């Protein structure tokens, strides 16, 4: 059975300015540094088979990025608890960090939330600002992350707007039947009604730069970005820092996230960074 490691990671601070392809390169190097037994493509130029979720716009922060790492066939060792850091002939075995958790079945992170050796080692190998908050083991079959996510949760600032003005703008937008915005797509200006994509929108507070809003925006048929809302909410103002907080999929018991941070959740409680 082919198994994948699903990794949830953050992207906050200065590192928010690297692009999606940069994230892929940085992740590939981190996986090699940790020595995870990840599958490569075949052929003359074997590449690591990483699959990322929805691309995050450059400059946005996130605490909910996902990447799946397909494991090689013999990466999973059956039976017994593995010792932390143990290696076998096929390379390092993925094991739980000793002490805080009971060893998972087969010495691997189970699908239950866990913070494992892998998470710690990957965080260590990634640049500052990219931290792994959850690692789960999932079956190799199933839809791609990109296809499964239907809604993203966001938090974003509107620079220089106070909370009461923001609250009024939010109420007006939610009351409107249509909200037409323009964006440039492949060199052409496209206008579209984004009102149906706005599932939740509210003011959650203030930062030293302005109002902080949270939103849930649909990701299908395309990902609507907070930056598209700002001209409709406050045309004279710029968006400050925006952060993705969640990516939602449909699960058997209602909506769910592809992987939920557990032990390290506290790490991400700081407000939107400066």
């Amino acid at each position: 059975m082919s198994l994948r490691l699903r990794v949830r990671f953050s992207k906050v601070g200065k590192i928010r300015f690297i692009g999606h392809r940069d994230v892929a390169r940085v992740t590939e190097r981190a996986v090699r540094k940790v020595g995870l037994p990840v599958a490569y493509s075949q052929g003359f130029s074997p590449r690591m088979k990483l699959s990322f979720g929805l691309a995050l716009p450059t400059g946005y922060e996130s605490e909910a990025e996902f990447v799946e790492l397909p494991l090689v066939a013999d990466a999973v060792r059956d039976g017994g608890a593995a010792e932390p850091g143990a290696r076998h002939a096929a390379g390092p075995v993925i094991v739980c960090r000793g002490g805080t958790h009971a060893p998972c079945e087969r010495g691997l992170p189970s699908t239950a939330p866990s913070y494992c050796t892998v998470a710690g080692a990957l965080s260590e190998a990634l640049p500052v600002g990219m931290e792994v908050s959850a690692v789960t083991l999932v079956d190799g079959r199933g839809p791609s992350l990109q296809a499964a996510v239907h809604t993203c949760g966001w938090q974003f600032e509107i620079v220089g707007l106070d909370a009461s003005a923001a609250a009024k703008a939010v109420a007006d937008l939610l009351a409107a039947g249509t909200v037409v915005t323009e964006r440039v797509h492949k060199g052409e200006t496209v206008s579209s009604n984004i009102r149906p994509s706005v599932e939740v929108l509210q003011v959650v507070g203030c930062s030293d730069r302005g109002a902080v809003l949270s939103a849930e925006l649909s990701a299908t048929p395309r990902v609507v970005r907070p930056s598209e809302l700002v001209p409709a909410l406050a045309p004279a103002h710029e968006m400050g820092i925006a952060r993705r907080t969640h990516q939602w999929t449909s699960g058997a018991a209602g909506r769910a996230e592809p992987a939920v941070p557990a032990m390290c959740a506290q790490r991400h409680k700081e407000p939107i960074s400066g």
Partner: protein
Amino acid sequence: MTTLWPRLEPLLPRVSKPARYIGCEDGMQRPTAGPHLTSWLLAYPDTYEIGLPNQGLQILYELLNERPDASAERTYAPWIDLEAEMRAAGLPLFSVDTHRAAGDFDIIAFNLSAELVYTNVLNCIDLAGLEVRAARRNDDDPLIGAGGHCAYNPEPLADFVDFFVIGDGEEVVSEITEAVGAWKRTGKRPGTRSTILRDLAGIEGVYVPAMYDVAYDGPALAAVTPKYPDVPALVAKRTVADLAEWPYPRRQLVPVTEVVHDRLSVEVFRGCTRGCRFCQAGMITRPVRERPAAQVREMVTSGLERSGYDEVSLMSLSTADYSGIAELVRDTVTGGNITAGASNTAGADANRISVSLPSMRVDAFTVDVAAQVSRARRTGLTFAPEAGSWRLRQIINKLITEEDLYGAVRSAYSQGWHRMKLYFLTGLPSEMDPDTEAIAHLAAACTQIGQEYTKRASVTVSLGGFVPKPHTPFQWFGQNPPEELARKVRLVRSALGRNRRVQLKWHDPAASTAEGIASRGDRRVGAVIEYVWRKGGTFQEWSERFDLALWEEAMAACGLSLDWYVYRHRGEHEVLPWDHIGAGLHRDFLWHDWQDALAGHGLPDCRWTPCYDCGACTEYGIEHMVASPVAPNGGSQGTGQDLATGHLVPVELRPRQLAGAGAPSGGGA
């Protein structure tokens, strides 16, 4: 010393490639500042993605930060979009490490890898909030330094730079740190800037232009003489004798965004004595100093493990000449299995380490080396025959035969490559049309060989216009004007006919002219650089930003002649602008080699044959450090081949008449 990050951050969403400005590399240091530390800002005057991989800058970055009395950060030229935002917001040039203002540093030191970055040097000084002309800066302003290969003719930048470092920087930066530190502790009092400059001028390998008088005789340079008795008349280069003592960089910077050489680099040797007469690097970096094989292996292994890279470049001016190169490549490729710890992940080769060998001589690219390299992902292959005909290759002393080239090409195609790049220079001394056209014939013959192995066989021919460089035997040669270089490109193109397997690329001939102005310019050229900069001529290395008309306008405005500075042949006794800079080479050696070139006489590699006393070793009491007594991969050179058979075609250099009037060199028309 406060960080400028809060002011920079809001600008970044508005510019292209904001990751250029954030630092965050693996290996980045966050040095502190303080009165006890001499702080260096190491500046690369081009974009981040060009400058970040520079090994010289990274070596000094580590060495300085290891010193208890120094700190070093880095900066790169901001692209024009950020520059506009910075100027509008009043934000000065900043370091990418801690985002401190450039003006807060004690020294801003520029790496000069190419002449066309000179206008960017001025722009960076200006963005730092400083006067571009050294004489107008304040006593407590940062000192502006410069080093790198272009510093071997410092004169075009002499009015803007306080001090130049000639040669290897590893040792001399310590001496500069100590001198500047002592000055800093006295408070950089008013009137003391000239004192520190004079102190710096006393350090071996340091050139302080303000300490010299320049005299002219009409358009000619008469003399460059020291103003004071304690200032040396000849500034001799610094050379580190043993590379084994300098295993740097130990922690190569691994960037978070794409850069031009995004791989591990390990310098396997420094210097080259193949003696190619056009090659400045091969002349000024002598002698050959190999890094011990065990140290190379250690640096490769630890570097890969630390960085997560799966590709390593074995760096030098001619890597196939490294003693034991085939074994080194083999061990590097297979060593990846040990490093990554998995041999049976997906396909046997998934975790192999790719090896890239820049500067491969064709007479050393054997089937063995090709087979070793191809065991991992195949890296791009570039061969540099430099000239199309054997006659011309003898003139330039690039002594590889057609058979050598075909052998290398066959090795590559037989080991699975489909395409390769062939690099040539045009506008070489004594080049005649048949020499130029021979480039097309060589390329076509290579694709013929390729078709024996693959239907997809092709080659890319890349043509560069030759720009004569200081401290080489060709420093006396008059450069081809752009029209002539363009004509030679057309000549190759028409000789290629409809051969679809050969793709032709060429360097803009107009850019070669601007490069020529700065390459062999004297101090008067500084005004030209300032003019071009003031008219917005930054990033002249970038074709979309380059404009020859601006340079021509600047030359005219400064009353200088392109013909005098670029196109004219120099005479044996002419005072050259870099005569007071010592690269270790005897001037009469260079002149005789120039005469030998014109006579078509080759010169063997002194690594494996008797010394001909160019001066590089004898003047400094140092020697080659090579592990192999013979050329590691055989090849034509250094194997007893008769080198003195090139004078079948008579060569004569005729003095040029006027710029643009006919052929620039003998027999070109």
